[in-house]
């Protein structure tokens, strides 16, 4: 049971991120909610690779050969970089919108509807 805590925390982070996206009205907070969802997915990825009793996957001077999975750590690094690009692009969009529309409220950003 206690081994599953990282997975529950990852799910909780995703839920908190989704709650932020849905309840907040400021665009920057919504994009940060998206970054929270991404953090939750990253935690899930890293937690999947844990092997009980394993050490870091580095061969030099390793205390034992029982190592945690290295693939997921590579996946998480890739996702962190993708997240940086995504958050940067979306925040720059929010910046332009706040300059052109004069507001950062998502309920006012409705010039395209129906």
């Amino acid at each position, binding site marked *: 049971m206690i081994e599953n805590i990282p997975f529950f925390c990852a799910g909780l982070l995703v839920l908190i991120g989704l709650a932020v996206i*849905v309840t907040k009205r400021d665009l920057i907070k919504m994009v940060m909610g998206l970054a929270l969802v991404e953090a939750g997915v990253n935690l899930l990825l890293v937690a999947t690779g844990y092997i009980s009793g394993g050490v870091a996957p580095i061969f030099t001077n390793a205390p034992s050969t029982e190592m945690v999975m290295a693939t997921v750590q590579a996946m998480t690094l890739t996702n962190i970089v993708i997240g940086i690009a995504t958050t940067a692009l979306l925040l720059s969009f929010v910046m332009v919108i706040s300059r052109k529309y004069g507001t950062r409220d998502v*309920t006012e*950003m*409705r*010039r395209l509807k*129906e």
Partner: protein
Amino acid sequence: MIAETLYTGFGAWNPIVWLIALAVALLFAWFIQRLGEPDIPGEGESGKSYISGNDEPSPEDGHIGGSNLYWGFTEAMKGYYARVVPLHTGCLTDYVLWFLGTFALLFILIGVI
């Protein structure tokens, strides 16, 4: 490369046969059009188009714009449109809520049923 017949398992569709039929029909239409007058004969009043005695409207007035063209259809389906169109609010939060709602429905459908 001759076009072959597309068999769907229930019927067949051969485009060449259809194109030949279309060519024959267009030929008939051209013959019939040749028998008529090329343009409205006469000058002055008898040279203009007949619109029940009214003047020809100006180009701006004579063209029905896009919104007015299917008025009968949108009027008849007013109950449907009054419910569906307001759902397209344009607010980003509602879009995310629809996505999460669809995921929840799919999860109940796939996982539980």
